[in-house]
Each structure stands twice: as structure tokens, then as C-alpha cells.
């Protein structure tokens, strides 16, 4: 493959060529920019900060991800690009430190090629709530890429880079991955360091990975996972070994809680699920059907916990030390209120207000504590489900990618699009979105798989089977099946 075609390569194949000297680092890092970005980026707008000089600064030739370009969501701290959470309140802010996941990426040889668009402070499911304007879905430019990590998902889908980092507080990696037809992994809570991820809901937030190939997911997971002394919530001990991702699914069982999609789910989404399940069965997995209600109150519990934590986490954005400050403030109170009223967008303000209310004296027990109790029950329900199967299958989102503007005036409808993803965040378990083809209208179809804590190895084995149509032996080197690239419409 010639250098101009390098953008089609998987991350691991790209890194192997860089290490072997067959591909110049510069050609590896710039492949997406010289190639598909020219066709796509002006309209998709996946990237909010790019800097050729920053890309050129690092020239790694070693490491499992040597020379692999990675787009990083704009809420993950990088010293070489601004980190603004797509919010006016952090306009121009450049962190003095790299997030742990970023330093681990760099240590593995990867190069940050820019920052990805997102819903402001990761609050949203469509990447429409960004101060930079929306990102569009490469499969249909009139549709949203999902959110909140819409930029990184879209960039991986159209070929800017084979890997990207997002963050997932209630589905913000898995839902855009599903909408953009790429793999999206949210690891077990505490497996990836949150140090340097700008907090939204600290007890729910995890950095996640976007990839086009299961092997790339495994390589990135191995580079990023593990305890971090800078994040007291990382899990102690070694991360699970995902190197057996090509082991197949023979002998594994998957839970099939069909009661969850009996209504309110797009029939084509259900069709994609059925086809994926059949493929897994043909490869030796067993379907275990049971009814599962992962906490009827999970959406309510989620929006109380996430907003309560957010109201406190976002208090530091006040115009005093960094970022945007309202120029006309006669006193401290005015400085705070004007800075925050103009610096935060409407969805962020809505959630700060919700969370402040949920924590207020007299309401704390009724809202926050009740939500925490519900959360404990949800966790137990998932645990009970995993006593009956190795992983669960369900939709990533109830619908196919929706149109820009379709839900922006209806926050509740937007919140309900998270219904299948928030459970994993409340329970702290890993979840993975896997593309399974296209709908009749040519939009990506995907399934979501959830595993027990530290169940990433099993999820990757199942993803590899779906990616290869059962022939996992093909998933290496030049045999890797070509990604189903979007065509421009």
C-alpha cells in the first residue's frame, strides 16, 4: 500500500510499518489529513483544534502505536492543544499538563492529531451543543453523529485516524460509535485513569476508545488501562489481558433481554441485534433469554447523580483563574453570574441547576440519596444478570441517527436516547458498541454488549467475531477485512 493510502490501515498495521521503517512517521501521522480529511472535514467538522506544528513535534518510531494518529476529545487535557470542552467558558484554555491517558498514548508511540468536537462539557447526545457548532454524521450529513463524543466518532468513521479517545458518562462513546458505525468501548469504571479528563459526573465518567478494528481496540486498551497514582478511583491491580481477543466465542453465553426492545426501539435496530445474535450463535455462543429490567428508574437515577456531581464539578469555572471572564463585572457576584451565564450554554446551565437543586438542603434525601440507593440496586441487578451469562446484548440506542435539530428543543427526548447506555455507567461495568451493517437507508446499525466488571476480554472476543463474520483468524495483518467506509451523500 502506498503512503497516500496509509489512512486505510488499521492502527496496528500502521504502527508495524512505522517500526519497520516501511512508512515514514510523517506519512503515518498525516495520512488522514492529506487523504479523507480533504473530502470530509469541511462538512463533518469533527475537529475543533488542529495544529500541523504540534503534529510534527513528535516523531515516535517505537511502541505498539508508533506513529498512529489519534484524535482526542476536547475534554481531555493536552499540553499541545487547547482543551475547552467545546465551551465558551474555557475559550483558549491550554492545560499545563497531559491527561494520564494522553501521556500513556504518547508513551505507546501515538501522536495526538487534534481535538475532537463534543457536546459542551459532554452534556448531550448529538454533538449539537458545542460552541464550535455541530459535527455531522459522515453516513448522512443531515444527521447527527451522536454524542457527546461525536467528533472523535465521526473522525474515525471517515478515516482521519484509526483511533480516537472519547469520554463516556452515560453512553457518550457507545452511542456516537453506534451512530457512526465504528467500535466504541467504555471500560470498567476505574480501568482508565480520569486524571486530566475534565470531570462531568465523576462517579460515572470513563475515557473510552473509538476504533475501526477490534485489534486496534485491544492494542489501545492495553496501552491505556491500569492503575494511576494520580487517580484514586482507578482499580488496583493489573488490568485484564485482552490479547486473546481472537479466541472466538465458543462456549460463551450471552444474555438476551428481549423484553427491553419490545417497544420504543426502531425495528431496524432490533433487526441488527437479531442478526448479530445469530452470527454469535453460529460461532459457538449460546443465547440465554430472560427478562431484564435494569432498574426501572435508571434514567431518573442517572440524571440526578450526573447533574448533582456536575453542579459541583463545574463550580470551578468562574472566570477567576482561567478561561472566559466577563469583562464588565463591578463586583464578585457579578463576575460569577455574568461569566457563568454567558460562558455556559443552555444545556450545561440546565444541568447545573438540576444538580444544584438535587443537592439542596431539604431535597438531598429525596433526590440524591434515593438515586444512590437506586444505583446500588441497578448494580445488583446487573450482577445477578451476569451470574446467568458472560455478557449481555442490547441496543446502543433506541433509534438510528436522528436529524440535526430533531431533538434539540426537547431535552427529555434527548435524555431518553441514553436509556440503553446509562446502566453501564451506573453499574461501573464495561460496554462496547459494535457496528453490524447498514440500515435500508444506509445508516449504521450497531449492537451494544455489556460485560461484568473487568469483562473487557470477553467483549473484545465477541466484537472480533462480529467484525470478521465468524472468521476471527482473518483479523490480523493484511487479511483484516476492509472497513465499510461511508460514501458521501
Amino acid at each position, binding site marked *: 500500500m502506498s503512503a497516500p493510502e496509509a489512512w486505510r490501515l488499521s492502527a496496528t498495521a500502521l504502527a508495524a510499518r512505522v517500526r519497520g521503517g516501511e512508512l515514514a512517521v510523517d506519512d503515518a501521522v498525516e495520512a488522514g489529513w492529506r487523504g479523507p480529511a480533504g473530502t470530509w472535514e469541511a462538512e463533518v467538522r469533527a475537529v475543533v483544534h488542529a495544529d500541523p506544528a504540534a503534529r510534527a513535534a513528535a516523531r515516535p518510531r517505537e511502541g505498539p502505536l508508533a506513529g498512529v494518529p489519534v484524535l482526542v476529545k476536547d475534554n481531555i487535557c493536552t499540553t499541545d492543544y487547547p482543551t475547552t470542552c467545546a465551551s465558551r467558558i474555557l475559550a483558549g484554555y491550554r492545560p499545563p499538563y497531559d491527561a494520564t491517558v494522553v501521556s500513556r498514548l504518547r508513551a505507546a508511540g501515538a501522536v495526538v492529531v487534534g481535538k475532537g468536537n463534543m457536546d459542551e462539557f459532554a452534556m448531550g447526545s448529538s454533538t449539537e451543543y458545542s460552541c464550535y457548532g455541530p459535527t455531522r454524521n459522515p453516513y448522512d450529513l443531515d444527521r447527527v453523529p451522536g454524542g457527546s463524543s461525536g467528533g472523535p466518532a465521526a473522525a474515525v468513521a471517515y478515516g482521519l485516524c484509526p483511533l480516537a479517545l472519547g469520554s463516556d458518562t452515560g453512553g457518550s462513546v457507545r452511542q456516537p460509535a453506534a451512530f457512526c458505525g465504528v467500535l466504541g468501548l467504555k471500560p470498567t469504571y476505574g480501568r482508565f485513569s480520569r486524571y486530566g479528563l475534565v470531570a462531568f459526573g465523576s462517579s460515572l465518567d470513563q475515557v473510552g476508545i473509538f476504533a475501526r478494528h477490534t485489534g486496534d481496540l485491544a492494542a489501545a486498551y492495553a496501552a491505556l488501562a491500569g492503575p494511576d497514582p494520580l487517580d484514586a478511583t482507578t482499580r488496583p491491580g493489573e488490568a485484564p489481558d485482552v490479547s486473546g481477543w481472537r479466541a472466538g466465542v465458543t462456549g460463551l453465553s450471552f444474555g438476551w433481554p428481549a423484553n427491553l426492545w419490545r417497544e420504543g426501539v426502531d425495528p431496524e435496530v432490533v433487526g441488527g441485534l437479531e442478526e448479530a445474535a445469530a452470527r454469535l450463535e453460529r460461532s459457538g455462543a449460546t443465547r440465554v433469554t430472560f427478562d431484564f429490567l435494569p432498574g426501572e428508574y435508571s434514567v431518573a437515577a442517572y440524571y440526578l447523580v450526573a447533574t448533582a456531581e456536575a453542579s459541583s464539578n463545574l463550580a470551578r469555572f*468562574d472566570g477567576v483563574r482561567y478561561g472566559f471572564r466577563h469583562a464588565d463585572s463591578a463586583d464578585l457576584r457579578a463576575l*460569577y453570574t455574568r461569566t457563568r451565564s454567558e460562558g455556559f450554554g443552555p444545556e450545561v446551565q440546565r444541568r447545573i441547576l438540576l444538580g444544584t437543586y438535587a443537592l439542596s438542603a431539604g431535597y438531598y434525601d429525596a433526590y440524591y440519596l434515593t438515586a444512590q440507593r437506586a444505583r446500588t440496586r441497578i448494580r445488583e441487578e446487573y450482577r445477578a444478570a451476569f451470574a446467568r451469562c458472560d455478557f449481555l446484548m442490547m441496543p446502543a440506542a433506541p433509534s438510528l441517527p436522528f436529524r440535526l435539530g430533531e431533538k434539540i428543543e426537547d431535552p427529555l427526548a434527548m435524555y431518553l436516547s441514553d436509556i440503553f447506555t446509562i446502566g453501564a455507567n451506573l453499574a461501573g461495568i464495561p460496554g462496547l458498541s459494535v457496528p453490524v451493517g447498514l440500515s435500508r437507508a444506509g445508516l449504521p446499525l450497531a449492537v451494544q454488549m455489556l460485560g461484568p466488571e473487568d469483562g473487557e476480554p470477553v467483549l473484545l472476543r465477541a466484537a472480533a467475531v462480529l467484525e470478521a463474520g465468524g472468521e476471527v483468524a482473518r483479523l490480523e495483518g493484511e487479511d483484516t477485512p476492509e472497513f465499510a467506509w461511508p460514501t458521501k451523500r
Partner: protein
Amino acid sequence: MAYEAVIGLECHIQLATRTKMFCGCPAEFGAAPNSNVCPTCLGLPGALPRTNRAAVDAALRLGLAVGCELRPVSEFARKNYFYPDMPKNYQITQYDRPLCEGGALPVALEGGARRFGLIRIHVEEDTGKSFHPERHGDRPVSRVDFNRAGVPLLELVSRPDFRAPAECAAFLTALRRLVRWLGISDADMEKGHLRCDANVSLRPLGQEAFGTKTEIKNLNSIKGVEKGLHAEIARQRALLESGGRIEQSTLLYDADHDRLAVMRSKEYAHDYRYFPDPDLPLLVVEETWIEDARGALPELPWAREARFATQYGLPGYDAAVLTETRELADYYEDLARGLDGKLASNWVMTEVLRAVKEESLTLAAWSAKVPAGRLRGLLAKVAARELPGPLAKQVFAWMRDEDGTVDELLERHGVRAQGSVAELEPLVVAVIEAHPGPVAQYLAGKTATLGFLVGQVMKRSGGQAVPQVVRELLEAELARRSGS
């Protein structure tokens, strides 16, 4: 109507740990503004806290010393409010599951010792420091120094057991001694290492129910606490006696003008929206940790004070002075080995403490200069009546500036110590009898002639005597004669 004051104290103790509570920055005082800072203590986006075990250890030691119940699993919480010197606009503290609960601090009062009950002791982080307003051209500006942000604090809340400001002052004095004794804080109130807020209410004598309380802040010294409380009690009493009502409020005490100003009234009370900090796991203190802390606990000041009184036969006053600091108590005990306890106490309380004060030394520096063992050599000779008091004091003065044992010092200065009083006394008597004129002048009040008499004795001793000793022996003999 007679009223009784009910007072509770809330103390903040800044810990003398090497690093801050939730990051690795130095916790030292006095560095250039905003130099001891990092993403975590500046509250930069994405930065996370991690718990400093040394600070928890300090809390455990204090908790054990005052008999608190220690929670094996406690919890950090966020206290949310906006202020520019608080980088995250929330403070990490402990709320409904503090590390230590209950316990009591023994306090020496005029009428005897009393134990004042505690509600809780917990760990938290300090804020930065604001400086305002300053001028920047024609605009007033405020500046913030974040060096202090994140420095570990212990918050100690007492029961409302105090009835008089003097009790509060004694409590703070005892607390200051204890935390210094444990080596967990410098506890200098003027430097803000030890801060104190007080809650005060008045009630008619004999009434069980509490009155409405006010909180006084900005009490910057132990004296200030006492004065501020007197001022507030007087204010409340005057208000009640004139038929007024106390309003729940927070007041600032201005020590310079002995005045109280209302900072905020109840309507503006904060809702701090406490909730467990999701960035920090539960604080688990294993039994072995507690046992290690207990094992590392020194003999406590009040126990040592009591032991000094019985073991060394010291008056209560001596025992209290000698246990003011652990270093002093150690020095005393080292010195007193094999000696009469009271003799050692007298020397420490007068000579040693005076010398330390004169030279502005720390006791550690003093001990390096005059180790207890060296001083013990001197006192042993005093006890054995081998050195007269005045000569002993002269030797002590030499010890402050020179090396050497007592014998070496005596030799260096040409003084034969053995039997020197016995040898000098006949010379003194002889000189007095040989010079009746100057003696009469001296006895008539012309004390300057003493110098002449001293010179005569020195001459007869062949220059071997110590002038100070001769002077004192002469004075004693002359006094005896004038009296008889």
C-alpha cells in the same frame, strides 16, 4: 436577671505535614506567592485529589490522644460555596462520617483540672489566601495566593461545655500544647496555624434550654478569643436586658478596636450542599494503622505532668512549666536522672529557661549547646556541696559559651573547685577584719567599697578565686555582721 453563657469552640489546626492534603506540593509557609502549586491544588480542569496518609495519621494521633472513637471507614465530602480563594469552589472535608468522634481534652483550670468534651475531629483542606483590596492604577484589585490551598487541616469541634471565656482560653492553651507535643502542628495562632471560631449563647441561670447563638470569627489569638467572647457576652446580655432578641448571625471580631461586626445574618446562611466526594474512595483506616499510631504516641502531656509531680516530688506549678513542651520535659527528665528532682527543676525553670530566652534559642539548639548530661555534671557537684551556688552559676555561664566538663572549665578559668568555699571563707573573714574602715563605709551605705574588699580577697587567694563568688560571700558575711 442573671445569665449564663454557653460557648462551643470550632478549631482549625494546620498540620505540619511535608506535603499538602491531596497533592504532592510542599505545605511549607513563606514561599513566593503561587509557587507551591500544581494542577490539583489549583483546581485546574481534570485534576484529581489523592489523600495524604501523613495527614490522616496526624488526625489519628490527635484522636487517640483525646480518646476519640475512630471510624474505620470514614468519608470525604464536598462543601460547596463560591469564593475566589477556593480553587474548585468546593472544599474537600468530612461531613457525616468524620474520622474521629467524641473524646475529651483535659484542661488545667484555677479550680483544678477539667475535661472538656469533643464532638468530632476531621480532616480537610485549607483554602488559599486573599489580599484585598490593593490598587492597580486607579482600580482596586484583589490578589490570591494559592500556596496555602490544599494544606491539610484538622477541624476540631467541642461540645458547648464552656461557661466562661477563661475556660476557652485554657482549652486553647491545652490544645496548643497537645498538638505541638504530638508534633502535628506548630499551632501558632498569630500565623494562623491554629484558628478558632466560637459559638455563644446566653440563657437565664438555671434554664436548661439553650438561647439563640451567634458565631464569632476572626479570633486571632488566645487573648483575642477571650476578649472577643467577653465583648459578645456583654453585647448579648445588654440586648437581652433591654428586652431585645438575639438574632442568629455570624460576627467578626475586630481585636484592635475590641468591636464586633455582623458578617452575615441567618437569612444569608449558606446551603453548602454537602455530598460524598466521588473523586476519593472511602477512607479506610485498618486496625494495624490505628495500632501503629497508638504505638507511636508519646506519653501525653497531662500524664507526664502528673507523673513529674509524684515521681520527682515537684509542685504542680513546676510540673506544668516543665511539661509545656515535650522537648523541655525530655530535657528535664534527662537532667534529673540521679539528681534531686526539685534541684533540677529549679535550674531548668530559672537558669535554663532564662538563658534560652536571652539567646532566643529553640530548646533543641540549647540542648545541642548544653546537653542535659553536661548540666547534670554541674548539678551533681552542687548537690554534693562541692560547688557553692554562686560558683555553680559562674560555671553555668561558662558552659553557655565554652566546651568542656565542669572540671575542665574550672581548670581553664584557674579555679580550684574542691573546697573552694571552705578555703575562701577564712580569707573573707580575714579581709573584713583587716579593713574596718571600708567595711564601716560599706555598712553605712557606700556599697562601692565592696569592689576594694573583693580585690583584697582576690589578692590573698593568689588570683584563684572567682570574683562573683567572692562578691557574694562578702555580701553574705557583711549582711550577717550588719544584722547582728
